[in-house]
Structure formats: structure tokens, C-alpha cells
């Protein structure tokens, strides 16, 4: 198991980049971002040592760990990796023995839902290494918490090496941010007691990958809250967090699949279902009327896209709902939809709104058995289930009266052909100047992906192109306003102004002048359709009798995180 991380890191060794984080210096220069020429050689195969060799390396290196660990300047060649490996090995032994004897780990192992096939994946297999994007989460003590592919146990030594890298760089007051090789980018993110690592062979930028790791972190926070995670690790440094996250792997898996397939995450904006403004307004009014005390958000979702969102008045003044929080909510709904007839009541934290307290989410489908229209009501009161369920009955009644469900059923995403611009194949448009209220939720609009982007591979390819354009536009070292990029099978144009961010995809033979004209037409079309494409004036209601008792500042809500019972179990 160990040789695998050994040669994996061997590949990455020459490009190890350490960046001083303390004073905000970004030593970007060392990074060669031009990855356009992807080499086809496979270093894994040639670098794979026989098992005998591995044992030798290990025993040799363990003996001189002491010297190596103190010698920080040693950064060159194989010795560095060997040192890391030895260090990890030692750590693993230390932890492993303790872990095995503890009942916590046993419980964790037994509880592992093993029916998820990719959890059983052979982590020594070549296919495991060939995944586009690996994501690992570990605790500061090096304990595995989550791996996207393969079981955490099987990967404990690999994670040990990662932790060793993190702590090795830390000893010289630096923070490891990334490691580059020809084929892979390894990005590290440290958040509180958690270390998140992404190993990607996509062309995504470090910044984008770190953003995705942030989503993973937020998803974990949304289930446990930041406060309880820090408290747990303060109590017990080597706590096995999987004990609390057991069963949530599917939620994290689902999030990572969404991150890979849905551009909402890249753009940091939500996608709402195009709907006639009058229908959207009437839905909002229905939500606005069905309220109970301590209700703070009412959200209506159809086909995994937002229909409308209504916020409590004092809450909206306090803060807006961040797109990332909406993404987490949508992912939760997607992951918990297996048994759709019931009404779900569950605590959830919205990390960007307040990372330390819980909301209580009521989730129910309005159109069983199809289950496409979902109502999500968020309350700050743990006991409010029956009151909130009553709101749902009112909403259901009003929607039946207005025949809303069949109207929603007709709503669908649009085709790019409706724009009426030839050569335009696809686009993503994110406005910054949403009218009326600058606190509005960031949104974007985008047509269906149609031929030639109907197959999964082609969709991924287009998204990869968009990610590339996005990384160029948002490059920290050389940000761009406009980029015209002639790719192999299409021509891309991305443009960012103070009012919007736009990514377009044209047929390959379009000229620059043509593309510019097309964009002018496209912008005019969006302007015309604005009311249908976006939630323009998000309505509000008032459910808190005393404005100072808004959920954000309320102490009693903070209490809830302590009340959730984990601490008693430590």
C-alpha cells in the first residue's frame, strides 16, 4: 500500500511549491500553469517499485527519520519523499495501534455502509489512480475521514503521507498549498482541525480546486457545525470523525459529482428554472402567506432548480442567503430523496450564513410519486415540525387551488436556439447588477446542453473548457477581462464587466467580429427575458415578533449545536 504513495509523490516531487502564507505572499512564479501539452507517458508504471524494494526503503529510512525531520532544508530528490514516507509510516503505526484497540474505530468499521461499490475499490489498482479527481479529508492527527474513491482504512498510509507533507512544511512556518506534476495537481486546504486534499488530473486551476475543497468543507460543516467540530477535536485530538459522518458519505459523494457536472459551483451562483414572472410571483405569494413563527426561509425547487425563495425580513436585512448554502441544501435534497413519500425534518447548518448554529429543515415533495417539486422550509425552532408541516398543507392547498403544479410541470429549461443567434452553441451568463437589491442571491442562466454536447463525455469537455476560460479570467497573477479562445472543436469567448460575467461557446469557424455581434444580440435577448430567467424581486415575510431575535444573533440557537448530543458520547 505504501509504495503507491511513495511513487505517487515521487512524480510530484520536482514541482513541490511551498508558499509563505503568513504575510500573504503568493509565490506564484514557480507554478507553470501552461498545461496545454499533456504528456502521454505514464510515470506510474515505470516508477512502481517491487514490494521488496519498498520494504527496504522503509526500514532504511525509518532509522534516519530523526535526523531528517530536524533538517528542514532538505528538500531535494528522493530522500525527501522517503523521509516523508517514513514519517508517515511512524505516525500511522502510532495511530493505528491506538485506533484498533479503541471501540470507536470498531464501531466505525462496522457501521461503514459497504454497499457503495467505489468504497470497495481496490486502492492499489491502476484504475483507482486514474480517477480524474480524488478528494481526501483527514484530521490534523492524520486520521482518515473521507475518501471519494476507495475505503479510508485502505488509504490510511496514503493519508499519513499527506499529513506528513502538511506538517513537514508547517515546521518551517509555511503552509503547503499545492504540489504540481506533469499530470496531477495536488491542492491542500487546512480548515480548523481538518485537512482537505484534492488530487486532480483535470486542467482546473489550483484556485478552482481549492474552491471545490471549500464546498466539501462546508458540506461537512453543514452536517456538524464548525463549533462542534472544533470542540470535538479540542477534547480529543485523534477522534474518529467518521463516527459522526458515517452514513453521510453519499452526501459528500453527491456533492463532488455535482461539483463536476454543474457549473453553478464554478460560478458561485444559483440556477433558477425559467418561469413566467406572473407564475413565479404567485408562487412567492403562496409561500409568503404560509408562515409560522421562527420560519426563516421558504424555498420551492423543481427539477433541482430554484423556483422561488422567500426570506424572513429581519434575516434578509442581516444577510443574504449565499449561493453556496443553497447548493448545499439542493445537494442534501438530492441525496435524501430515496424515500420520497414522507416529510423530512432534519437539522442543517448553513455554513456561510452562520457556521455554528443549526437550522431545522422541513423537506417534502409536493407531487408524489413523481417527486420533482420540492418544498423546503427552514426554521430556527427544533420543535416546530408540526407547525411547519401545517405551513406545507396551506401551501399545498393554495397550489392546488391555483393549479400551480401543472403549470410548474410545463416549465423547463430553454434551448439556445430560442436566442436566435446562429453559431452560438451554449452560454452561461451571470449578472452582477440584479435590480432593486444588491443583497440579491447571485444567479446565472444557461440553456440546456444540446448537440454536439449531449453525450456525457462532450458535456464534460465543454465544462472543462468553461473551467479553463474561468481560470484565465480569474487568474490571480494575470486576470483578464476578455478572452477569445479558438479550441479544437469550438471557439470560446469569455467576457467579464462590472455588470456581468459571460461565457460563450460558438461553432469553430466563427470569426471574432461575428462572435462580438452575436454576444450583443445575446445580451439583448437576455435583457428582454430577464423577468423569466431570474428571480427578480425576492419577497419577504416577517415571522419574528422581536426583530432582535433574528436567528443570526440569537443565543438560543447557538445552544442547539451543543445540544445535539455528540459531546456526551465522547
Amino acid at each position: 500500500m505504501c509504495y503507491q504513495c511513495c511513487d505517487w509523490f515521487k512524480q510530484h516531487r520536482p514541482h513541490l511549491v511551498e508558499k509563505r502564507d503568513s504575510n500573504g505572499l503568493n509565490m506564484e512564479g514557480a507554478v507553470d500553469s501552461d498545461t496545454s501539452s499533456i504528456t502521454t507517458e505514464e510515470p506510474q508504471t515505470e516508477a512502481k517499485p517491487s514490494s521488496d524494494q519498498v520494504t527496504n526503503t522503509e526500514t532504511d529510512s525509518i532509522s534516519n527519520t530523526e535526523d531528517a525531520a530536524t533538517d528542514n532544508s532538505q528538500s531535494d530528490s528522493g530522500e525527501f519523499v522517503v523521509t516523508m514516507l517514513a514519517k508517515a509510516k511512524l505516525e500511522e503505526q502510532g495511530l493505528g495501534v491506538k485506533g484498533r484497540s479503541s471501540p470507536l474505530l470498531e464501531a466505525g468499521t462496522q457501521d461503514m455502509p459497504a454497499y457503495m461499490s467505489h468504497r470497495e475499490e481496490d486502492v492499489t489498482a491502476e484504475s483507482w489512480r486514474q480517477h480524474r479527481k480524488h478528494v481526501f479529508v483527514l484530521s490534523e492527527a492524520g486520521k482518515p475521514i473521507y475518501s471519494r474513491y476507495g475505503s479510508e482504512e485502505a488509504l490510511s498510509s496514503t493519508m499519513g503521507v499527506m499529513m506528513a507533507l502538511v506538517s513537514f512544511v508547517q515546521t518551517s512556518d509555511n503552509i503547503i498549498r499545492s504540489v504540481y506534476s506533469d499530470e496531477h495537481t495536488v491542492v491542500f486546504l487546512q480548515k480548523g482541525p481538518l485537512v482537505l486534499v484534492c488530487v486532480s488530473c483535470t486542467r482546473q486551476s489550483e484556485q478552482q480546486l481549492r474552491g471545490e475543497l471549500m464546498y466539501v468543507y462546508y458540506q461537512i460543516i453543514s452536517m456538524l457545525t464548525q463549533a462542534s467540530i472544533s470542540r470535538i477535536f479540542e477534547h480529543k485530538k485523534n477522534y474518529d470523525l467518521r463516527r459522526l459522518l458515517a452514513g453521510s458519505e453519499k452526501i459528500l459523494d453527491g456533492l463532488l459529482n455535482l461539483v463536476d457536472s454543474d457549473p453553478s459551483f464554478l460560478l458561485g451562483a444559483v440556477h433558477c428554472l425559467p418561469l413566467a414572472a406572473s407564475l413565479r410571483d404567485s408562487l412567492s405569494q403562496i409561500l409568503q402567506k404560509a408562515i409560522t413563527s421562527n420560519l426563516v426561509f421558504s424555498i420551492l425547487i423543481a427539477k433541482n432548480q430554484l423556483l422561488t425563495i422567500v426570506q424572513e425580513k429581519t434575516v434578509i436585512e442581516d444577510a443574504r442567503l449565499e449561493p453556496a448554502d443553497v447548493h448545499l441544501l439542493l445537494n442534501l435534497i438530492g441525496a435524501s430523496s430515496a424515500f420520497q413519500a414522507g416529510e423530512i425534518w432534519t437539522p442543517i447548518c448553513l455554513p456561510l450564513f452562520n457556521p455554528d448554529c443549526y437550522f431545522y429543515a422541513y423537506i417534502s415533495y409536493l407531487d408524489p410519486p413523481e417527486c420533482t417539486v420540492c418544498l423546503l422550509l427552514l426554521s430556527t425552532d427544533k420543535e416546530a415540525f408540526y407547525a411547519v408541516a401545517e405551513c406545507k398543507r396551506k401551501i399545498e392547498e393554495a397550489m392546488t387551488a391555483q393549479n400551480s403544479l401543472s403549470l410548474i410541470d410545463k416549465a423547463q429549461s430553454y434551448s439556445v436556439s430560442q436566442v436566435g443567434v446562429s453559431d452560438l452553441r451554449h452560454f452561461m451568463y451571470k449578472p452582477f447588477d440584479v435590480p432593486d437589491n444588491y443583497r440579491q442571491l447571485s444567479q446565472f442562466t444557461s440553456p440546456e446542453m444540446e448537440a454536439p454536447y449531449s453525450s456525457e463525455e462532450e458535456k464534460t469537455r465543454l465544462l472543462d473548457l468553461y473551467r479553463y476560460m474561468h481560470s484565465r479570467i480569474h487568474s490571480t497573477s494575470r486576470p483578464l477581462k476578455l478572452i477569445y479562445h479558438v479550441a479544437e472543436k469550438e471557439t470560446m469567448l469569455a467576457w467579464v464587466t462590472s455588470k456581468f460575467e459571460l461565457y460563450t461557446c460558438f461553432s469553430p469557424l466563427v470569426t471574432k467580429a461575428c462572435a462580438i455581434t452575436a454576444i450583443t444580440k445575446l445580451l439583448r435577448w437576455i435583457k428582454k427575458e430577464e423577468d423569466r430567467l431570474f428571480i427578480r424581486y425576492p419577497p419577504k415575510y416577517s415571522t419574528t415578533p422581536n426583530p432582535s431575535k433574528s436567528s443570526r444573533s440569537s443565543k438560543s440557537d447557538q445552544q442547539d449545536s451543543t445540544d445535539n448530543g455528540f459531546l456526551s458520547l465522547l
Partner: protein
Amino acid sequence: MPEVSKLKKPDVKLVLLGDMNVGKTSLLHRYTERKFKDTVSTVGGAFFLKQWGPYNISIWDTAGREQFHGLGSMYCRGAAAIILTYDVTNWQSLVELEERFLSLTDTANHDCIYAVVGNKADLTDLTAQLPQTSDLGDQTKSEESQVLSACPTPPASPVSISGVLLRKQVTHDDAVALYGRILRYKCLDEKSTLPAEKMCFETSAKTGYNVDSLFETLFDLLLPSILRKRNENQESPTVDLEDCRTSGGKRGKASCC
């Protein structure tokens, strides 16, 4: 569908408790939908309203994960029946019932009835591999689900390949003993309460073995509290318009789902 479910007032509350992966959602799903399918880990708790003849029984299917432990007492508040579920192939799941879940029942009614249910019996007993009820048509599916349901068992036990039985880690006697301890915890007299033989079940959500009998037994036992509650409501001056409508429906045994 929405018209039917709205305005219905639950008569009694039943709660499913137990460690994750013991099959609480599957049990309920087998009973209400007559099917066994791959479920995902429940988040928080899911509320169902089950129409049983003229009565409405609310059922809380709770998450077994520790993450949601804090909500347990809220789900159990005022419960008239609690099903404590374990996995017959996993000793720890029985232990968890006593350590983690029993204290949650403190908020339940004082006359709450308890059932101890060992699920996944099909993995250890040949008899449980045959459904008890006659109306199960998805035997064809069992081939693929065999693999699915066999996996969430502790890695220590032998893996079941179609037909091979797993070692039973929890016997019926263990469950009966636990039932006795529950009564003692509740300070209930063993003689005046329901006997353990009646309240300890072994079921299989996969084959349907004993599932109907579990729920129907409980509902029958709940009938007195349902009637008492309805009487209390009738004594109150409020007129429940809903009553006239539902009383028309005949008690067709479980045919309404």
C-alpha cells in the same frame, strides 16, 4: 393524493429507533410500499401518516446516525409505541439500543408500548427467506438485493453469497432479555405489561418475513389508546368535521396503502 392527506389528524404516534443500517427505513418501506429497495441513509427523521382503517397513525422513521442523536427525544415526544430495531447479524446494534436509544424514549407516553425487532433475519434463518404474506411479488428482485443487503454487516462475519447463511450474532433470547431490561428501566411491572414473547420480533424487510405481523400487532395494541384519545376529543366542545368523513371508510385491512 394531496387532498387525501391534508387535514388528517394523527391519532397516535409510532417511532422507529435503532442504529444506522439496521433497516428501519426498509422495514417501513416494506410495510407501506410492499417493496424492498436500496435506501440511502436517512437524514434527521422522516414523518409518515399511515392510514390504518379509519385511524391515522403517524410514524417517525428516524436516522440511526449519531449525528442526529440530539433530535431523538423530539421525535419520541408523546409516542404511543416505539420500535427498537437491531440487526440480527450485528451484536453492536443491540448494544446501541440500550446505550444510545433507550434514554431517548424518556419523552414518550408513560403507557408507551415497546417492541424489540431484529431485522435482516433472512441472512441467518432459512424460514425468514420465505415471505409470510402472500402478496409479495418481487421474489425476482431478491437475487440482486441479496448482495446489497448482505454487505452492511460487520466485516468480521462471513460474507453471504446467495444461499449461504450468516452467523446470527443476536439470538431471540438476547432480545427477550433486553426487553426485560427496558421494562425495568421504565419501572414497569413485567407481569402487568405485554409479555416479551409477544413484543420481540425477528423480521426481514427484504423478504417481508414477519413485517406485517409486526406492524399489525402494534396497531392492534394501540387501538385502546386511539379510542381513548378520540373519546377525549369528543368530550371537548370542538366539533371535528373530519370525523364524519372518515367514519364512512370501512376498515379494510391494510388495503389502503
